[in-house]
């Protein structure tokens, strides 16, 4: 099919689909005035029932915690897929040399970059941990914290260069972190099941409202997600950066 024919086909489809779509969207409750009974019930009883202040975390990790388990495994599968598909192309090379690009001067890292990264890296790491731990209280949690931790390890790469980064951040460790992350989630759900409750039931002591350890199961699940997300994004970053390296001499 020629490109013109394809576009004609597409716009013909739009001619029918767009009016219908608008007709359907108009049926939605007026923007800014929708009162969701589901959300209202959660907002109304969440703090009393689970001693947490972040209702989004309550939904993500408790009320609809099983969905989040599935989402974590989507991430897990995508990362496993990425590492499987980039397998062995360049080996686990620690070659310092980026592939040479013609017409481009290679520049060393400036000291300013190294210094900034050395200072910023640990700060970011701490911030990621902070965001994870406060997930049940304030905006944030395992998903955001884990991404920030992954970003922090990328700062190691900026500051110390690729070989040092590969020495500090090992792929095996990342696999382990990822597996442990989803493992924590799975097992944390199993424990109540073995104790006679339902899967993922929040039967731990709930703690004081506003304290770091409030929410029972929620902080544990948050930590699991943070491990899995951090490990996952780091694995992806490593695999991708490996692709920009010159293969080591001894590997073919």
């Amino acid at each position, binding site marked *: 099919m020629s490109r013109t024919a394809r576009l004609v086909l597409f716009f013909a489809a739009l001619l029918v689909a767009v009016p219908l779509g608008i007709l359907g969207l108009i049926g939605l409750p007026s923007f800014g005035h929708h009162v969701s009974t589901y959300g209202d019930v959660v907002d109304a009883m969440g703090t009393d029932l689970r001693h947490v202040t972040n209702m989004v975390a309550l939904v993500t990790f408790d009320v609809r915690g099983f969905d989040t388990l599935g989402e974590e495994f989507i991430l897990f599968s995508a990362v496993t897929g990425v590492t499987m598909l980039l397998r062995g192309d360049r080996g686990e090379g620690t070659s310092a040399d980026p592939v040479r690009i013609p017409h481009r001067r290679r520049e060393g890292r400036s000291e300013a970059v190294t210094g900034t990264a050395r200072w910023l890296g640990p700060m970011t790491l701490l911030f990621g941990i902070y965001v994870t731990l406060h997930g049940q209280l304030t905006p944030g949690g395992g998903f*955001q914290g884990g991404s920030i931790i*992954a970003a922090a390890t990328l700062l190691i790469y900026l500051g110390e260069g690729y070989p040092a980064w590969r020495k500090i951040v090992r792929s095996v460790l990342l696999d382990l972190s990822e597996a442990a992350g989803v493992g924590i989630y799975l097992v944390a759900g199993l424990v109540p099941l073995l104790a006679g409750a339902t899967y993922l039931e929040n039967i731990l002591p709930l703690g004081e409202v506003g304290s770091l350890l409030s929410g029972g199961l929620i902080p544990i699940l948050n930590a699991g997600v943070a491990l899995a997300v951090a490990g996952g994004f780091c694995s992806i970053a490593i695999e991708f950066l490996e692709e920009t390296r010159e293969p080591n001499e001894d590997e073919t």
Partner: protein
Amino acid sequence: MILVVALLLLVAVTGLGVVLTREPRRQVLAIAANGLVMGLLFLALQAPDVAYSQIVIGSAIQPLLFMVTLASLRTTRSDK
């Protein structure tokens, strides 16, 4: 409310920008811009949780992955 409307229109425009920027290296910038505006929109919609993860991922990690891919695409010899 005006803020929400303004951000919505910005999202519409930056989204169009992503589609119409056909040169991948410039598209990365468009993606980052779109991600950032989306994050701000989510803040305005009283969804700080989503906004944080959108800002970290949509305007930092994801564009970074695109950039690294582009870098290695330029260097791969096709061993056809």
